């Protein structure tokens, strides 16, 4: 990892107004929670149930993959699109350090965006049987999701020509459509890992539900995703060559 590259990638992702749009995005769950408070009877039981649906389904289910997608693919894709990756390649910096720097920024920015998305609705809903350990459990899930998604999408940004579209297809086809219905595919879905991990990290007394992916599956596939993606990204960067302008 190289501090300057981290700084550069961070600046690039959040150049101009994109930062504010991203923040708006992370406020969506709070808005929903506020709707909930204003328009419903919000008894304690309902509040708890609401939050237990909001966090895994909306925050981990939709916000996490989409923000990881945007940050991950921009980490490399942005530089490639702008044509500025060259400047990093003609420096005495080992290419794996470039990959890791960009990966770290992707993970951090996704994770930081998830924090308000998890905690603010919890604050808004505030029920006595919703102790803080519940959002904390989801934060663990978000962390795992950020780590795995970050690797996968950073790799896409470095390896393929249309990383966002392909990432979207992964999210929509594998995670949305298939993983919901076919049990075996769940082992390919990072979102399922994230949700399962949150459930595991939560105290069983909180009774959040049973994880749908086995621990061993998660360890194996998770490691595969992480290491495989980063290795592929490194391979693609090492082979990256600047072609002549036609």
């Amino acid at each position: 990892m190289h501090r300057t590259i981290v700084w550069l990638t961070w600046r690039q992702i959040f150049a101009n107004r994109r930062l504010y749009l991203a923040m708006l995005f992370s406020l969506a769950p709070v808005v929903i929670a506020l709707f909930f408070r204003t328009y419903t009877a919000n008894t304690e039981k309902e509040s708890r149930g609401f939050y237990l649906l909001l966090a895994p389904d909306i925050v981990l289910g939709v916000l996490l993959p989409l923000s990881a997608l945007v940050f991950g693919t921009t980490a490399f894709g942005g530089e490639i699109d702008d044509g500025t990756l060259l400047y990093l390649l003609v420096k005495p910096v080992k290419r794996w350090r470039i990959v890791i720097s960009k990966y770290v920024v992707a993970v951090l920015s996704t994770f930081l965006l998830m924090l308000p998305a998890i905690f603010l609705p919890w604050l808004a809903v505030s029920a006595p049987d919703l102790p803080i350990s519940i959002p904390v459990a989801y934060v663990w899930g978000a962390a795992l999701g950020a780590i795995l998604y970050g690797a996968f999408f950073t790799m896409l940004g470095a390896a393929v020509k249309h990383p966002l579209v392909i990432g979207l297809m992964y999210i929509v086809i594998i995670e949305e459509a298939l993983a919901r219905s076919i049990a075996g595919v769940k082992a390919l879905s990072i979102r399922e890992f994230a949700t399962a991990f949150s459930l595991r990290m939560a105290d069983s007394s909180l009774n959040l539900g049973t994880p749908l992916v086995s621990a061993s599956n998660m360890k194996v596939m998770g490691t595969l995703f992480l290491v495989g993606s980063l290795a592929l990204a490194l391979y693609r960067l090492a082979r990256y060559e600047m072609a002549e302008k036609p």
Partner: protein
Amino acid sequence: MADTRAAGTIYDLGYQRYDGIRFGRGHAVWKLLQYSYRCAFGLGRSPRARLAPVVVCAVAFLPAAGQIAVARLTGRTELINYGMYLQFTAFFVALFSAAQAPEIIVQDRQYGVLSLYLSRPLRGTDYAWAKLGAMVLAMLTITLTPQLMLFIAKVFLAPESPWTAFKAEYGKLLPILGGTLGTSVYMASIGLAISSVSSRRSFAQAGVIAFFLLMPAATTLFHGIATGDAKRYSVLAHPVWLLTGFMNWLFDIEAKRRSVIGRADLAPSAYLWAVLAISAFFVTVLLVRYRRSEP
């Protein structure tokens, strides 16, 4: 051979001035609409640009083909069902909007071509209307055509003579048209409005997909928890429920009592107003974005 006269002279090389017809604003808008319509289907571009629209089109037509085939084989044309068609294809229609709305509206901005368009008699809002028209027409093509196929199949495959079948069915034509038009305007305006904010195609696509993933999820969640009026009106926020309710109103179908729409028990025309209002909102967003004739 170079001529070496000392004083500068301008030679008449025979350049002609153009004294012919110059078309005006309306023509420009119409041509832009045509061109954008073609872009929405990836025509006139590389084969890769056609991939997404072709795939989505094919999927949108599949249920129609399926129903026709079944009707043909079993001879029972009443299996052909317009009103329910949307529920099969809602996802893919939204996907078309997400894939192609950015294609026709963000590419101009991304490649800096927008200023070329706006330096013509075209105003900013004209540009927006042309794009909207093109997108609506494109979506109309993929929603209306399957329905018309179903209609024609119903008429010609019916056991009685085509003319009798036609007289029985033609009342459905207006609802078919209205329904597809409404769906198209709704989805097109959302796709275009969200895309007009971004200057990169991939972000716009992500944005529109985010909307069509987030709204249903959030609304389902909210609907599950809410009570009373909020619960009933939240049905209007969910794209698929809203459009299904809209179709029910058009085709005069009574919603099943236990379905979400049945339980919401809203006035049937409420769906119409919701579709119109939401579309109007997004169209306004689009127009505001392009109100100034500067890129």
